[in-house]
């Protein structure tokens, strides 16, 4: 290993992208991941990655991509970093192409692009309908090459527990938990990049996220370690997912960009509601709007398809070979998990919690408020404002590595204060103690049942429609649940791969995450992007064009606000019923 080392926590797209950038600059990386990095949750991204290459002469450009990203985010994102990302996107897609990602091709052999939500341009490069999987594989392969060169050490099946701080308060390593052996080990380093994804489990298992990953735990430990949070109240609900007993599975937006139409029965006729309500964008309205429309149709108007909690997503009019080439992976998911043929029968879909626009606050170099701690990917708040556009997440994850990697590589070249043995031993001891308390508890509470209650509360009260009175009661119930975590008793007291013990500690973290979301949502009396309050149905730029900031205190989050950098594009009303707005 080189003399300078950075710890990367998270082996998804943002973590692997950061790792590659660090290695390329001669910095060694210790890469920690909950699962083998090739199996990270980024594999579930389906539709594609945005880059304005304008292959059809439609007049698209990185500047248009930037403006649509800001508009899609309802003007809550800081504009300079979002603009840089959009300008870098073509280089990123070309780089992934050079890495061997099997992107779909035009007859001439060039990259093919499709449309996506919130845009009228063909901007999204894709590899079938498993683009995230193919991107992860390409990066995993590049990281494996660096591993063979001795620049990367992987720690798979390890969980991040706590930051190590030096005498100047800088992040200087981590305490990790080896999950198979349950050992707690300190790993000093020169800096830390955290790229641990989103908090899907805060909303229970009925999300598009995995019920075993997306725990939200790592960012909460970082928050408790002094890192500031931003915009936690902005959580995206994806309009089209399928039900399942373990999770809801996403049916990609690309199904609609390839011609899929959404409808339900109304007065005995097929009602193509998006096409009627939004003639310009039709089925490709942004996700926040689409999810609210569907839920309104099903819940308030009682027009669910076949009397169920769903509407139709229909591709049965499209040529089957074309569907197989461009959407095969996602239609296979529908076929396998629903046991129905999506090529000939309309699919039944309903919205599900999908993505967090908020996360750790970072500066434009992706450093958090803890010096030496960087955050990339879904776990930061940087580009998506109040609502993320489809196919911008693979882009932002990869781009974050291209920002955090080089900046961290430069940061570690300075002389850093020594990290004392006492500080290291103390950090390990505190984690050991927390586990001992849990193992020795004779309490009667069950961590999984507390999780289920939290998930239900959050799903019912804090997703597409929010109401201040309900938020107040939700907060007090979350605090009751948090108090109950102290009485969790383990059924499993063994000291090898004890998944119950790990889970029990994460539930406590998740309740803290839930509290952050509710407190921030309660305070924001307006409607913007994914945050919608019927009491305050309009966006209120005069009072709320500002980023929510939250700092940890033992009593709960302390909120403050930061103005949004709107230096590049003047806020305007968001409309998708007309073109060129």
């Amino acid at each position, binding site marked *: 290993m080189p003399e300078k080392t950075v710890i990367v926590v998270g082996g998804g797209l943002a973590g692997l992208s950061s790792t590659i950038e660090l290695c390329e600059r001669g910095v060694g990386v210790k890469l920690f991941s909950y699962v083998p990095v090739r199996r990270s949750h980024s594999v579930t991204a389906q539709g594609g990655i945005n880059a304005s290459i304008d292959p059809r002469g439609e007049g698209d450009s990185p500047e248009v991509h930037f403006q649509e990203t800001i508009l899609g985010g309802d003007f809550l994102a800081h504009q300079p970093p979002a603009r840089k990302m959009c300008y870098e996107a073509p280089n990123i897609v070309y780089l992934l192409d*050079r*890495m061997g990602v099997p992107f779909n091709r035009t007859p001439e052999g060039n990259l093919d692009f499709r449309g996506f939500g919130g845009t009228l341009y063909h901007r999204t490069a894709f590899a*079938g309908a498993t683009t995230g999987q193919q991107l992860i594989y390409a990066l995993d392969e590049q990281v494996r*090459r660096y591993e063979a060169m001795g620049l990367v050490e992987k720690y798979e099946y390890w969980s991040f527990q706590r930051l190590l701080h030096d005498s100047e308060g800088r992040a200087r390593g981590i305490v990790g938990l080896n999950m198979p052996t349950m050992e707690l080990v300190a790993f000093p380093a020169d800096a830390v990049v955290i790229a641990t994804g989103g908090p899907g489990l805060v909303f229970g298992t009925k999300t598009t996220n995995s019920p075993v990953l997306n725990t939200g735990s790592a960012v909460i430990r970082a928050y408790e370690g002094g890192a500031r949070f931003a915009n936690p109240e902005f959580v995206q609900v994806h309009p089209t997912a399928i039900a*399942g007993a373990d999770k809801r599975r996403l049916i990609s937006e690309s199904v609609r960009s390839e011609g899929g139409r959404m409808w339900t029965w109304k007065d005995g006729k097929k009602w193509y509601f998006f096409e009627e309500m939004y003639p310009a964008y039709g089925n490709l309205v942004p996700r926040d709007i689409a999810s609210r429309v569907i839920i309104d149709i099903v819940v308030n108007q009682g027009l669910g398809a076949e009397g169920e909690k769903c509407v139709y997503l229909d591709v049965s009019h499209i040529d089957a070979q074309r569907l197989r080439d461009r959407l095969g992976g996602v239609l296979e998911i529908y076929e*396998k998990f629903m*046991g129905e043929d999506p090529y000939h029968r309309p699919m039944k879909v309903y919205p599900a919690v999908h993505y967090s626009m908020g996360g750790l606050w970072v500066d434009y170099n992706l450093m958090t408020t803890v010096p030496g701690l960087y955050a990339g990917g879904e776990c930061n708040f940087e580009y998506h404002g109040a609502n993320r556009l489809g196919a911008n997440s693979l882009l932002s994850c990869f781009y974050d590595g291209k920002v955090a990697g080089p900046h961290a590589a430069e940061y570690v070249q300075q002389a850093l204060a020594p990290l004392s043995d006492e500080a290291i031993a103390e950090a390990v001891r505190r984690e050991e103690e927390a586990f001992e308390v849990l193992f020795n508890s004779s309490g009667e509470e069950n961590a999984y049942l507390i999780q289920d209650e939290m998930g239900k509360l959050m799903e019912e009260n804090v997703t597409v429609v929010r109401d201040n009175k309900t938020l107040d009661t939700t907060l007090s119930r979350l605090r009751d649940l948090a108090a109950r975590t102290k009485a969790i008793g383990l059924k499993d007291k063994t000291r090898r*791969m004890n998944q119950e013990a790990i889970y029990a500690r994460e539930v406590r973290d998740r309740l803290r995450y839930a509290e952050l979301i509710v407190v921030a949502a309660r305070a924001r009396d307006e409607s913007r992007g994914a945050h919608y309050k019927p009491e305050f149905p309009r966006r209120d730029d005069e009072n709320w064009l500002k980023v929510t900031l939250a700092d940890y205190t033992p009593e709960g989050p302390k909120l403050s606000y930061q103005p949004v950098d709107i230096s590049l594009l003047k806020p305007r009303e968001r409309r998708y019923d007309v073109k060129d707005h």
Partner: protein
Amino acid sequence: MPPKTVVLRVRRQAGPHEKAYWEEFEVPYRSQLNVIACLLDIQRNPVNRLGQPTTAPAWDASCLEEVCGACTMIVNGEARQACSALIDELEQPVVLQPLTKFPLVKDLAVDRSKIFEDLKRAKAWIELDGTFPQGPGPRTSPAMQQLRYTLSRCMSCGCCMEVCPQYDTSRSFVGAAVLSQVRLFNLHPTGRTQAEARHEAVSGPGGIADCGNAQNCVRACPKEIPLTESIAALGGEMVIHGLRKFFVRH
């Protein structure tokens, strides 16, 4: 009439050196249940079928959409992903066992790091000059993209290794998935420049010659990757590679 409950018979083993035993569980039936949802149920209420309190079995999982390969185990005798194993399509009791060709970690969880080590041995990557802008990659026909995409959907799940009579972590054979990855990278215009190094890597012990042509792999692959076709194609490439080497040397 759907059944009221689901009975699962799970092979338990607390660690690689502990004794294995069977334990049965019963969870309430509901529609859309898969094996993972049953395992999640057991976590919430770890009581076995005899009504005795016990511990929940340990298992590995990630995406639960059959694109990551993590939750591979043996379900009713067949190596497959537990997420896409729907209860409605399985006979009861549903028998769950860990993969047998990899070192056991605990219960249903195994250590498949050999797969990743073998991918390293096979240099399964494209040699890039760096991440700095160099324009797009080489042009590729749609037909070649579809072939490469088909091969690139391999999840390194281990199903093909589980059913292979030649594969075992105590032996060096890399298995069908890794050989197919060699083919994948040798098909790429840039990857081809390293084809010889990959051929070297899979020509010695543990390489392509260890394949016994049982053809179980291709039947076991959940992604329908043409593994035997890959091995045959790679074998053809390597004959040419061997001849070339022979003539260069002599």
